[in-house]
């Protein structure tokens, strides 16, 4: 039963992700609740390990740095039940091989848009689940290779996402504890063939077979994000942990990129309208 509800929730979220909220709205503007935008800017520092057998069979590792942006808001068409999330994450890592004589750089840009159905469980605690559309662009660059120096990463996914948020107080300090997970289910992604050079693909122009249908048989990504927002006045200090797993196995090429990062940032709600509202629907509480 729970599984069936979860699946329906994912499907509904995916469908809503592609429908403009404006087309579903149709409410009287005077009766619309105020829906503050909850934004967060984060600086994330941690460690990344990367293995890409197109470049090398050796796993590289090293420090990584990310800049993140997140925007949460109650949906206009059903603010009490639905919320939207935009997330942007730019990640750069500089890695070395275990011997320390090889270097690899990586860069990723991730954007996702999610629509989640939320359920209030008890005072301050709510759960949410829904669908997510995500875009990933990036690549790995091995500084010691000849005609296979780099491999580009590009993917468009549809998947499931879940969120749990608990708003409480520690003495007089409001605190929001939140956990988010994203799991792409299907999509398309780019990969060269086993021994195909980028010279052949992009200089000669043999581009056949580079785009693949992605599902869990050949591509498994998972993103976990745990944050604590300490509300200090109008703004909140965000502390957290982000884990990103990107794996593909296609054309006999394996790619496994794992990042673990400590998150430090600023978050808070922005009131986009000064019009008096009958009620406020916050994504915090």
């Amino acid at each position, binding site marked *: 039963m*729970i*599984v069936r509800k*979860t699946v329906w929730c994912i499907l509904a979220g995916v469908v809503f992700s592609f429908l403009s909220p404006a087309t579903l709205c149709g409410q009287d503007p005077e009766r619309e609740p105020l829906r503050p935008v909850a934004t967060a800017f984060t600086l994330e520092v941690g460690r990344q390990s990367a*293995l890409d*057998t197109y*470049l*090398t*069979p*050796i796993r590289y590792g090293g420090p990584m740095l990310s800049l993140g942006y997140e925007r949460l808001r109650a949906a206009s068409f059903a603010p009490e039940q639905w919320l939207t999330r935009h997330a942007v994450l730019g990640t750069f890592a500089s890695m070395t*091989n*275990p*011997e*320390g*004589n*090889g270097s690899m750089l990586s860069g990723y840009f991730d954007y996702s848009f999610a629509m989640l159905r939320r359920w209030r*469980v*008890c005072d301050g605690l709510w*759960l949410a689940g829904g669908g997510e559309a995500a875009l990933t662009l990036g690549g790995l660059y*091995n500084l*010691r*290779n*000849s*005609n*296979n*120096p780099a491999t580009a990463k590009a993917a468009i996914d549809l998947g499931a996402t*879940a969120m749990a948020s608990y708003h409480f107080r520690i003495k007089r300090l409001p605190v929001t504890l939140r956990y988010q*997970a994203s*799991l792409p289910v299907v999509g398309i992604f780019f990969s060269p*063939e*086993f*021994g*195909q*050079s980028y*010279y*052949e693909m992009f*200089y*000669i122009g*043999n581009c056949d077979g580079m785009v693949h249908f992605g599902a*869990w048989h050949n591509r*498994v990504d*998972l993103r976990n994000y745990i944050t604590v927002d300490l509300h200090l006045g109008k703004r909140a200090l965000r502390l957290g942990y982000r884990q990103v*797993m990107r*794996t593909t*196995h296609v*054309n*006999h090429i*394996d790619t*496994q990129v794992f990042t673990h990062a400590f998150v430090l940032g600023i978050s808070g709600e922005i009131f986009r309208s000064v019009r008096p509202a009958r009620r406020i629907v916050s994504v915090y509480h």
Partner: protein
Amino acid sequence: MVVQKLSKIAILFTLLSTLLFQSCHKVEVFTDDPYGNFDALWSILDEHYCFFEYKELDWEEIRGKYRKKLTANMTSEELFDVCDAMLMELKDGHVNLTAAHNTSRYWEWLYGSPENYQERLIDEYYLDFDYRYTSGIKYKILPQNVGYMYYESFSSTIGEGNLDQILAYLATSTGLIIDVRSNGGGSLSNVETLVSRFINEETLVGYISHKTGPGHREFSEPYPIKYTPSPRIRYQKPVVVLANRGTFSAANNFVSVMKALPRVVVMGDYTGGGSGLPFSSELPNGWSIRFSASPIYDAEGQHTEFGVAPTDGFKIDMDLEQASKGVDTILERAIAYIAGL
């Protein structure tokens, strides 16, 4: 009730996460010891090297032959020597194992042949140390009104504007000698830049293929490589290309392309070959390995891994006695050929 639902959701999610982590494909990991490094090297080549079938090599047998020379306590240099000896079996100038103390290389095709080129002789007796030089190309109109250009390495990027200047300067010559002797190769994009000045229509110049899997016979269908003529200055008169066994890799490709064009004659010796586009990889101990990964064929779909022959009737070696007197007999033949047309 709510707690029960939450528990079930949590269990479901935990199981799913566990399943996903388990579903990561296992990648073989080799140990950083003599056996692990040797096996890593052998496996990288076993899966990626592109000429096993063409060269009729039994790679499994070669593994057995050299693996039994390993010992657990051998030094890094001793391991390198065993790996080096195994790689020599490939007879491939594009195969190099690079360690901190040495780089293995196969140059037998070069050492076993006459050099057929003396830079100082050309500079002194034909160019009088007075020539123009740009984009890595020396050029001059010789007294017989024959244009001459020497391109030392396809690693030197040829600028289109520089090439305009060169060809405009040589336009009054009756023919052109392009000397790529001892040119060890470089970037294939420079091959197209240069060749596009000698064709007047889209031209099929060869094919490229790549491995589609780790098996020795798993290759893609050859994909045609076509060059389009440059919209800038193009040379329309007879051309002689000079080659020797030191003409390797991208330079070997250049000769194979030019040889198929009308009005072009290739003189000198066989080229050195090297028709596999090299890839790189590495071993657990940090040594890097370069190897031929993607075969490039000539316009007739033939391998040129072991070299390109001169045009029929134009195979010629340098006469060293004449060379000691300042005469390059290969260049003299080319000058006479163009002057006599």
